């Protein structure tokens, strides 16, 4: 497995000089091809920082990150990953179609090839009818689907997602969870998914990595043995609840570090 890992994080430590905060300490993490891995933990556990280190948006203080066997810097320059933030970060002045085309423009694709791919992506996220709309004319859930389409437009091997559904209501979130899995099964990307929600992490992932704060560390991992494709019924299966409980226990074991308001997040 280690030979073909898509992501390999080796003993990564990140300290921020201001306030002398250790955001990440000795993180080891590997993501196999086509794997869907969630990073979960209370605020301040460094899960978003870890995602940014993988994406070479933040440099680690110690340790190494390789993506597809290359350095993180090289991987970013080669366009090896797509990213989705909590906010959709769409450009107001571009239509939905033009927003999806943005990374393709950056890669220097020809207009005809761009148009064809954008059409495919619109079809994938079922927004073909809204191609010529502007972002502010869409609901939050639709905006996030555009953001996902943009991230996947150039078929990156790796998809980084930073609480992509955190700002959405529960019902929209559950629907988008299903859509995301359908898209993932079609595209075959490897996904690193940061979330606050235990049930979301278990429902989506093949593996849930639990992190604990101060300093940010990996507390443990839970392998989710629920079969794909997952459906609405998956959320009601007894095994689903067992796994949710396992993740919650792991979070709680490390709870001695938590502040009261962080405890509340876990409930």
């Amino acid at each position, binding site marked *: 497995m280690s030979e073909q890992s898509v992501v390999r994080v080796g003993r990564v430590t990140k300290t921020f000089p201001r306030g002398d905060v250790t955001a990440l300490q000795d993180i080891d993490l590997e993501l196999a091809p086509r794997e869907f891995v969630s990073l979960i933990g209370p605020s301040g556990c460094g899960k978003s920082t870890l995602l940014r280190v993988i994406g070479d948006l933040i440099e680690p203080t110690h340790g190494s990150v390789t993506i597809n066997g290359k350095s993180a810097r090289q991987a970013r320059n080669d366009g090896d990953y797509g*990213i989705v933030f909590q906010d959709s970060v769409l450009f107001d*002045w571009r239509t939905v179609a033009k927003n999806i085309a943005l990374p393709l423009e950056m890669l220097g694709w020809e207009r005809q090839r761009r148009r064809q791919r954008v059409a495919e992506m619109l079809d994938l996220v079922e927004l073909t009818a809204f191609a010529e709309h502007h972002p*502010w004319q869409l609901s939050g859930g639709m905006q996030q689907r555009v953001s996902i389409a943009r991230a996947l437009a150039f078929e990156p091997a790796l998809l980084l997602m930073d609480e992509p559904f955190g700002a959405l209501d529960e019902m929209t979130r559950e629907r988008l969870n299903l859509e995301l899995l359908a898209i993932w099964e079609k595209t075959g990307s490897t996904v690193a998914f940061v979330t606050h929600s235990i049930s979301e992490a278990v429902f989506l992932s093949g593996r849930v990595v639990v992190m604990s704060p101060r300093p940010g560390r990996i507390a443990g991992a839970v392998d989710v043995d629920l079969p794909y494709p997952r459906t609405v019924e998956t959320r009601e299966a007894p095994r689903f609840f067992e796994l949710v409980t396992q993740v919650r226990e792991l979070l709680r074991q490390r709870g001695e570090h938590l502040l009261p308001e962080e405890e509340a997040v876990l409930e």
Partner: protein
Amino acid sequence: MLAVVVALLGLWELYRWIWTTTGWTWPFLVDDSSMPHVWTIGHAFFQPTQVNQPWLITILLHKMAFTAKEAAAGFGIGAVVGFALGVLLVHSRLLQRGLLPYIVGSQTVPILAIAPMVVIWVNPKLPPSLQGWGAVAVIAAYLTFFPVTINTLRGLQSADPQALELMRTYAAGRWAVLWKLRVPASLPYVFSALRLAATASVVGAIIGELPSSIQDGLGGAIINFNQYYTFEPQELWATNVAAAVLGIAFFVIVVLAERAVVRRAPENVA
């Protein structure tokens, strides 16, 4: 729109009527010289200023066209220079700290004080076709560039930090970040500056004509009709109306251009 114009004209006449019938002299004496009837001013447009001369409106239209040429050139220069300065400043904190105080300082110098120097410096270097009015355009540009620079800088800095992060994931260079993200994000700011600059360029052109002794524009006409104000006040008033119309026309053109260019969420009006 038309109703407002009619109401303003009505207010003018009402004020005139109250002050003349009561004989009030505060804050100033109201008579045919200080506040001519609106119809006297209107009528003046369609009268020759002297025997055997064309109507005033014909003369004013020519002068408006001349001043419009100066103002448009000044607006163009000011907008381009102002925008370029904004782009330069956003890329260098050092330049921002070093240059910005002088840019602000440049606007505290009264335009009338520097206009003669500009005329003397600029005019000899201009080809014959630009003689005279070219220097006035530079003076108009001096008034125009400032709001454009300040707002361009603010607009370029308004780009969402997460959007900048997204561009980093594409390994985007400075140039791509500028044209695909910063400039589009700045356009609402730039256009609100251009609206200010449009009217400022007309004022700058009119004032710039004064020290240049240019007779072909509205500035020349204002000086000229000033001298006859006690006999023919309506002619100066008519010129003022012409200047206002020109300023409004410039403003409207910018607003129309903005509607054509800027696509933004209705709530994000800068």
